[in-house]
């Protein structure tokens, strides 16, 4: 049932000399919770404003249901926006705010009233219809803004960092609320945030914006387990990046030499013997062994971070400054160690990722 409804094709945007977006491509499916994740100033709001029609791309095409809509004015686009600071009309009460989109379409006032009540009950504000926006809390204003968008039955709802202004507790509540409501009303959401945890929790798909381009687009699990670049590997959670050189290659295994010693990686790869690579391994995929085995490496404990029931270890080789992080070791185990002890480790290499080493020539 996944049909593609919105596409950005080779979109670039510059303001004068400053490039904001460089040739980005994006496809959004029906009923999808799609998140654009990027730091502030990365151009993520610009993308949303382009889809909404407030900004024109310098080059490239915006397609809705396979039709180019670059020139379509804002008021004709079948999208509605939930603005960052809600942008509720201060001169109208809650029900007039919510019903505004229908009023503009000249719909029968009695029908509007019914619909407003219906939508207000969806967002849990049925008793607030006579309040003025100024009399509502941030979270309530947020829900009015969402109701105002939902009632127009748009094909896509654009949400521009809608949770940015809320405190942590309320933010969590609203995340749950947004996720539930999106499943309920079955409208595609394009959501913008700089918060990685929020993105992972909410999204069906995430596009990570870095350096004016999409670094990677995929499901949260894809991004975590199959990062395409070292930037992405470091983006969600921790990742140890180890510079290696391939010293032996068999069918589904390569042997590498690194500053931490030699080990085998149980993966198929296109890299050939002698090439320099970077091996990324998450801290939780490193195991501490009681005894050394054929594929273990021996390292020294640099320091132990006690965190209560679990601890984090940093380990290094004898002559090196760099260290590896190992996380969530049961403290029952880590309490037996001391700084400077040597331990045997094994990488769960099947869940690691091999990257090209961009820095080596």
């Amino acid at each position, binding site marked *: 049932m996944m049909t593609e409804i919105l596409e950005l094709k080779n979109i670039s945007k510059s303001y004068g000399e400053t490039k904001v977006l460089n040739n980005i491509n994006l496809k959004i499916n029906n009923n999808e919770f799609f998140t654009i994740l990027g730091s502030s100033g990365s151009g993520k709001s610009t993308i949303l404003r382009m889809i909404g029609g407030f900004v024109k791309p310098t080059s490239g095409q915006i397609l809705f249901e396979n039709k180019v809509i670059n020139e379509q004015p804002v008021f004709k686009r079948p999208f509605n926006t939930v603005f960052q600071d809600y942008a*509720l009309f*201060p*001169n109208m009460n809650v029900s007039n705010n919510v019903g505004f989109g229908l009023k503009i379409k000249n719909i029968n006032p009695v029908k509007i009233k019914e619909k407003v009540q219906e939508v207000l009950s969806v967002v849990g504000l049925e008793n607030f219809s006579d309040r003025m926006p100024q009399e509502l809390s941030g979270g309530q204003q947020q829900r009015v803004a969402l109701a105002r968008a939902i009632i127009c039955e748009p094909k896509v709802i654009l949400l521009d960092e809608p949770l940015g202004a809320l405190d942590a507790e309320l933010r969590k509540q609203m995340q749950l609320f947004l996720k539930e409501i999106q499943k309920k009303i079955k409208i595609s959401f394009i959501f913008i945030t700089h918060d990685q945890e929020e993105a992972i929790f909410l999204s069906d798909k995430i596009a990570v914006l870095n350096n004016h381009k999409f670094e990677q687009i995929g499901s949260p699990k894809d991004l975590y387990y199959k990062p395409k670049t070292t930037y992405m590997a470091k983006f969600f959670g921790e990742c140890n990046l180890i510079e290696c050189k391939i010293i032996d290659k068999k069918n589904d295994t390569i042997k590498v030499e690194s500053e931490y010693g030699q080990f085998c990686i149980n993966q198929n790869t296109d890299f050939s013997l002698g090439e320099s690579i970077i091996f990324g391994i998450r801290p939780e995929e490193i195991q501490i062994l009681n005894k050394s085995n054929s594929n273990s490496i021996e390292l020294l404990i640099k320091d132990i971070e006690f965190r209560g029931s679990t601890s984090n270890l940093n380990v290094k080789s004898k002559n090196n400054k760099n260290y590896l992080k190992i996380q969530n070791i049961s403290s029952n185990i880590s309490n037996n160690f001391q700084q400077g002890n040597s331990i045997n480790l094994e990488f769960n290499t099947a869940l690691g990722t091999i990257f090209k080493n961009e820095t080596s020539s």
Partner: protein
Amino acid sequence: MRQVVNYFNTSIWTLVSFILVISLILIPLASFLSYSFFTVEGTDIIHEFSLFNYIEFFTGEIYISTFIRTIFLALIVMSICIVLGYPVAYFLARYAGKYKYVILLMLIIPLFMSYIIKIYMMRSILGFSGLINKVLKMLGIIEKPLEFFLWNQNAVIITLVVILLPLIIIPTFTSLEKIPRNIVEASFDLGCKPFQAFRYVIFPIGLPGLIVGSIFVFILALGDFVTPQLVGGTSGFTYGKIIYSNFGLAFNWPFGAALASILLFVSVIVILLTNYLTSKSKS
């Protein structure tokens, strides 16, 4: 100890502000009001309570009719100021970009100039051999100078509009400029065409500024006496001019005070009424 000093400080300042308000606003107003209940015999003011002045106002031939005519004049000036000023304020607030404050400054500068000088300037523009007539003559549009512009009601209206226009532009600009971009965008986003965005969102939200400016203009035009004096001739007689002549020429201060009290009363009513109407339209 420090708290005591602080407390003392606050109460001193409260006291000072009360004294200022009482001595500079309330006492003059009260004396003004009390004068309106006195009468004049010859050149002496009789300090005895009497409603004579008010009775004179309601029974005299010219007072009420002049007052009503002046209210109309002020309404006309206000309407012209709205029609001319609103588009300027709108343009400045929404489209003038980085130049808006420069242009606004140019609109404010005339407010620092003497009021009398501005009226004289208008006289030299509107007069028989003034700028307008000269230009029209030079262009061959007219043969002899038009009398339309000076020594009549039109001249009073034109001059008041020119002088009071900034007073409507500034508050209107301020309230229009305060409207966040997001809110206007939200109206487009919800399907408004540009005119609908103006009608349902921009105009209502900016309305308080326009109302404040309109009240400024209306009340100043209502009480003005210098403009009719200098450009109005005989047909441009206004209520303000009657008050002025009672104080300055006839030396009938009590009657002048009574006329002025009536003006004050009407002005306050207008302000309260608009206040009530705007707060009612909001809820």
